[in-house]
């Protein structure tokens, strides 16, 4: 399949020449490109890329024609005490007053001015397997770009109210670009919430680019509240500068096929990152998490914890690479992936990897996957808990550790409620 044939009449409704030129340039680059076959590359070893394109060649509804907001109860997705911003196909709706020092702009294919005011390319180091494959998915993102936002936080601002951006998926395929830039010595929490309640077999290609300036501190929670139909290709690329800290929490719920890439670049001394992931799968859900942490300079630190609960016939992949560059002495890295299989038909492929370019480092990594501990279950039963209740308690306990990585308590209780309703109902 060739990308230029996906949807021939997709370009209607585009009013900005500049926007169109930007997309055309990318489209030209991948024109003629043959999409890789399943298992033919490391990057697509466990996830079949053609799944993303199944049934997609029929033209999607032109954007802007369907307001999805009216059909769902948005309030139940709002994190308490956060500034809630609804990112809809009709533009951004800011529910409260934005704290001082923050600006947010919409990237919208229908808005002729959106590209001219927006810097939508940040330069990033790209490492690990599948550079070419990733690049092409990102070119695809550019070629059909139709939505996104650009969030900027000025220098020296301590924003103590979390900013929640709620993205309501509509009826069209989504090619989305989000930019987050946080200025020097600033601190903020940004929560991206993706809601999907409709049953259309939609394709989402979402690219998020982030810059954390010197001594800034950004907590970035990405909550993917998917249904079982979504096919999602997610890319997050982060630059972390001197003494800056980037804390990521990636929650994935279900999804037909989801491929999450996150690449965190520790560009300067003192840079630190913490990547946390939780995926809860059932039925035939499939999630493929690829993380890359590049320790480019000395005295950089990374922490990584990914946990998954897999039920029914679900499948998960954890492919985590930590690379310590040659001169990145005194790097400190710790990586752990843990999975609990709730059924005998669920499968997990876990591949923590460490590439170390010098001797003077402190690194550890590991992976555990298995069924529920029988001794623990019997202990609970011997105290009067049914097997079902005991299992529930143990699987909750298993994910408690990772939920505590959500430092914002309101976000944590929001997520716990969501999990109670969607996974344990």
């Amino acid at each position, binding site marked *: 399949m060739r990308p230029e044939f996906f949807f021939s009449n997709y370009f209607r409704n585009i009013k900005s020449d500049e926007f169109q030129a930007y997309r055309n340039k990318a489209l030209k680059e991948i024109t003629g490109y043959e999409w890789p076959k399943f298992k033919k590359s490391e990057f697509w070893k466990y996830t079949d890329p053609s799944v993303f394109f199944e049934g997609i060649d029929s033209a999607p509804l032109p954007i802007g024609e369907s307001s999805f907001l009216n059909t769902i109860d948005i309030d139940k997705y709002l994190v308490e005490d956060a500034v809630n911003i609804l990112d809809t196909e009709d533009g951004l709706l800011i529910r409260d007053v934005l704290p001082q020092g923050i600006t947010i702009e919409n990237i919208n294919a229908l808005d002729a001015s959106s590209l001219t005011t927006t810097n939508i390319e940040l330069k990033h180091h790209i490492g690990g397997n599948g550079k070419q494959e990733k690049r092409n998915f990102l070119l695809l993102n550019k070629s059909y770009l139709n939505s996104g936002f650009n969030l900027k936080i000025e220098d020296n601002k301590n924003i103590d109210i979390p900013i929640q951006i709620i993205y309501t998926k509509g009826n069209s395929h989504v090619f989305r670009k989000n930019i987050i830039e946080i200025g020097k010595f600033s601190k903020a929490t940004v929560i991206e919430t993706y809601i999907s309640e409709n049953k259309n077999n939609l394709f989402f290609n979402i690219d998020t680019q982030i810059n954390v300036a010197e001594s800034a501190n950004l907590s970035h929670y990405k909550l993917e509240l998917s249904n079982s139909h979504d096919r999602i290709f997610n890319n997050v690329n982060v630059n972390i500068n001197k003494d800056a800290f980037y804390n990521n929490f990636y929650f994935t719920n279900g999804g037909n096929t989801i491929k999450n890439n996150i690449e965190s670049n520790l560009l300067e001394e003192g840079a630190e990152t913490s990547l946390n992931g939780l995926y809860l799968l059932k039925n035939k859900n499939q999630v493929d998490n690829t993380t890359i942490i590049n320790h480019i300079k000395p005295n950089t630190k990374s922490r990584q914890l990914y946990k998954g609960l897999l039920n029914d016939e679900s499948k998960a992949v954890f492919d985590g690479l930590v690379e310590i560059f040659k001169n990145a002495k005194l790097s400190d890295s710790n990586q752990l992936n843990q999975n609990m299989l709730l059924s005998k038909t669920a499968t997990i492929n876990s591949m923590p990897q460490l590439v170390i370019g010098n001797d003077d480092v402190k690194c550890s990594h590991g992976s555990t996957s298995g069924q529920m501990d029988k001794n623990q279950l*019997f202990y*609970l*039963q*011997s105290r009067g808990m049914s097997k079902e209740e005991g299992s529930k308690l143990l699987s909750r306990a298993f994910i408690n550790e990772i939920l505590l990585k959500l430092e914002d308590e309101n976000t944590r209780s929001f997520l716990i409620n969501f999990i109670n309703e969607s996974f344990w109902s």
Partner: protein
Amino acid sequence: MMLELRRGIASSVDIMKDGCFSSFDIMLEPRRGGASSVDIMKDGCFSSFDIMLEPRRGIASSVRGEGMLEIKDLYVDVEGHEILKGINLNIKRGEVHAIMGPNGAGKSTLSKVIAGDPSYDIKSGEILYNINFKNKNLLEMEPDIRAKEGIFLGFQYPVEIPGVNNAEFLRLAFNEVCKYQNVEELSKEDFLELLKSKMNLLGIKGKFIDRELNVDFSGGEKKRNEILQMAVLNPKIALLDETDSGLDVDALRIVGEGITKLKNREMSILLVTHYQRLLDYIVPDFVHVLYNGKIVKSGTRELAKEIEAKGFDWIIEEVK
């Protein structure tokens, strides 16, 4: 304070007056923990008493000496190895039985099989358990049902469960039992009160109720926690598997005295132990020696003392 008789749970209450216990059968709203002063009518007059109310299972009227647990010809394998080779044991209400024996004799297996550990393979035999005067085959019941019917296993190695709060777990377990018995569940606050009263009773201090279940507990803390769980769940039969192992003198005293305080005339205890030191606190009615999967000798407390003095070898010689 007047007793409320709303809920139709019959309990027998032992009331001490002038140094003597009298037994009364009354219907009352179960209110756990904490001593209450209660007015009880006897011979047409109200008298005031301090009593401790405990949840009781099933119908209250009970007779000390009736059969509680009967193990018949029990054969058990684990991973293809025969561990228990024909166990016969009869425990009556209120009795204390001690099982002693060398390592690897099958002592722990016996207590775990009674509690329902699924890792054991029951080849033959049965375990009859008295539920409201009817003998039920315990082996057909799930482990949690056994627990809800009053069987408690104090683990030799209490399992660590990260991510589960100790007190919250105890409340969940307690309320599961309440639900099963059709008794009102306790709120967090009420349960905490109950828990504190049990801790006071047992002389247990420490913040371990607020920690993760058994995680990073010292050996002594783990065993004390087991006894605390026993106090909260108030079983009919307590199976105590090497509860004295790994305890220093002080911890042994707390655990030993704790069990003595919890032991009422209705509770039977099966105590698995290697040494006789716990038996200084809990005096057994019977002592059995388990060797190579069989009970090879039974006796009274004197047998335990003999073993303490002479070891097991002479008994093993006798068997051969």
